[in-house]
């Protein structure tokens, strides 16, 4: 075990869902890269909010509203500290990563002009491609793609060759959702900055495994979804550097984001409220903070070491299955706990369907990253993604089930 203080059985008891059966079998949940499961502590915080201090925030003079506002703003500070942002108002609550990227694409992206270039990595989730495509169409900026190499890593030579004074934005994920590749974002950020470009890093897949320090990275924008990191769905954050957020126009209009409104002119509120129109997901924001507390009670180093142990074990064991092809970096150290694979001659959908009958949940398909699948010329992969509450015993069940599926389907 990676750390003597990490008691896996105790951790598993925190997750009520891990006790349930699926199709009569013990659930083996290996779809953590799609969404993580939720510990009791986080669920309780949501119940506590609705049972005890549900109120709209930032407005009411009454006690409930003040309690709710305090809890929500405390969560913002927890998130700020977790990512080591300089100021709490550099953390903008959003509905998730997709919303956060759309915010930057529409707001900061409105500064783009014809002749400008933006660079996107070929490893992106569709949500870090499409908003920028839409913005390029609107502004006349041109999008260039940093290609992927066969090992699932970015072609950094191409990046260094193509980045120039024309480049205004680079967007890249910290970790690929389809393959688990950890991208060299430090190198990308430093190089982009040397050419005067800003960088948005999609941290949806890295957040559950790697504690990013936004100041040390010197990243301009970093986006996260709570539901990937033991929090609830429907809430996430955008981190942005204060000076950039100050320059940016609001993205959505409504309540909360204004200072003064008249039909002649509206003046906007300061950060972070300028970007937080409407009543937010208050319980979700508070629960996001509790999820981070929970992760820290175990420790990100412990989590990372244990997950890597699981990935190494699964990577070895899956080789027992005839015809298995693994996609992405070969060395488990170069990726997070994701095993993206196919079995020769079989469709990932068939494998996923049979495994589900045996209680094993994994993801099949293109993982909203079709450019990667096009590169390998495959319709999709099966993806097993592990979390710190998974066990080697579950990996054993998965391998046995996979062998059975292969024999049924062949």
């Amino acid at each position, binding site marked *: 075990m990676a750390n003597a203080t990490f008691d896996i059985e105790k951790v598993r008891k925190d997750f009520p869902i891990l006790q349930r059966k699926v*199709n009569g079998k013990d659930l083996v949940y290996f779809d953590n890269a799609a969404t993580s499961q939720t510990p009791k502590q986080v669920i309780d915080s949501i119940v506590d909010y609705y049972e005890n201090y549900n109120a709209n925030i930032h407005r009411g003079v009454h006690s409930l509203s003040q309690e709710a506002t305090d809890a929500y703003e405390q969560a913002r500070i927890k998130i700020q500290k977790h990512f080591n942002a300089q100021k709490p108002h550099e953390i903008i609550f959003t509905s998730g990563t997709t919303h956060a990227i759309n915010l930057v694409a529409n707001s900061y992206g409105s500064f783009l002009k014809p002749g400008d270039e933006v660079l996107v990595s070929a490893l992106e989730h569709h949500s870090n491609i499409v908003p920028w495509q839409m913005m390029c169409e609107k502004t006349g900026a041109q999008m260039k793609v940093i290609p992927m190499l066969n090992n699932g890593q970015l072609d950094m030579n191409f990046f260094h060759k193509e980045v120039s004074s024309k480049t205004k934005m680079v967007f890249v994920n910290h970790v690929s959702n389809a393959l688990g590749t950890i991208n060299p974002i430090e190198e990308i950020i430093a190089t982009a900055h040397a050419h005067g470009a800003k960088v948005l890093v999609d941290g949806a897949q890295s957040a559950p495994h790697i504690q990013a320090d936004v100041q040390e990275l010197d990243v301009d924008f970093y986006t996260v979804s709570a539901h990937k990191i033991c929090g609830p769905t429907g809430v996430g954050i955008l981190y942005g550097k204060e000076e950039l957020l100050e320059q940016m126009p609001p993205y959505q209009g409504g309540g909360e984001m204004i200072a003064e409104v008249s039909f002649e002119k509206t003046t906007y509120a300061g950060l972070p409220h300028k970007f937080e129109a409407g009543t937010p997901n208050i319980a979700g924001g508070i629960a996001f903070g509790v999820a981070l507390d929970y992760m820290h009670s175990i420790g990100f180093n412990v989590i990372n070491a244990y997950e890597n142990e699981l990935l190494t074990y699964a990577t070895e064991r899956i080789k027992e299955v005839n015809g298995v092809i693994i996609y992405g970096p070969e060395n488990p150290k170069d990726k997070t706990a994701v095993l993206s694979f196919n079995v020769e001659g*079989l*469709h*990932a*959908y*068939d494998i*996923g*369907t*049979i495994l589900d*009958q045996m209680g094993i949940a994994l993801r*099949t*398909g293109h993982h909203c990253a079709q450019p990667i699948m096009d590169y390998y010329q495959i*319709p*999709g992969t099966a993806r097993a993604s592990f979390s710190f509450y998974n066990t080697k015993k579950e990996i054993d069940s998965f391998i046995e089930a996979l062998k059975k599926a292969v024999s*049924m*389907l062949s």
Partner: protein
Amino acid sequence: MSKIEEKQEEIVDEFSMFEDWMQRYEYMIELGKTLPQIDEQHKTDENIIKGCQSRVWLHADLEGDKIKFSADSDAIITKGIIAILIRVFSEQTPKDILEADLKFIDEIGLKDHLSPTRANGLVSMIKQLKNYALAYQAKLN
């Protein structure tokens, strides 16, 4: 009783013999292997049913007053599902296809495949079968 209903009952009877999911899936895989292959010329992008995780091609010809379906997929379980659907719907009149009630899907334990998740193709397949029936009915009238 219309022929569609008879065919549905036949399939329900066959599936009622199976004791567990494995037998049910093994049978669907077998059915998939026997699926009458679609003519290569009909495996076009136009004939791909959108909304399936696996690729599914469906083609329909009008023969007399009846529709003949042929299909293929790159996933074997999907092929099995289409094979069942084709057995029920192929060589039926557009009117009967449009009016058909598909309660057998539930009865043979395929209901899981009807949930409206994005991975799922059964809903799209049935919709496409019925679309063909609608188009040919318009043509016949």
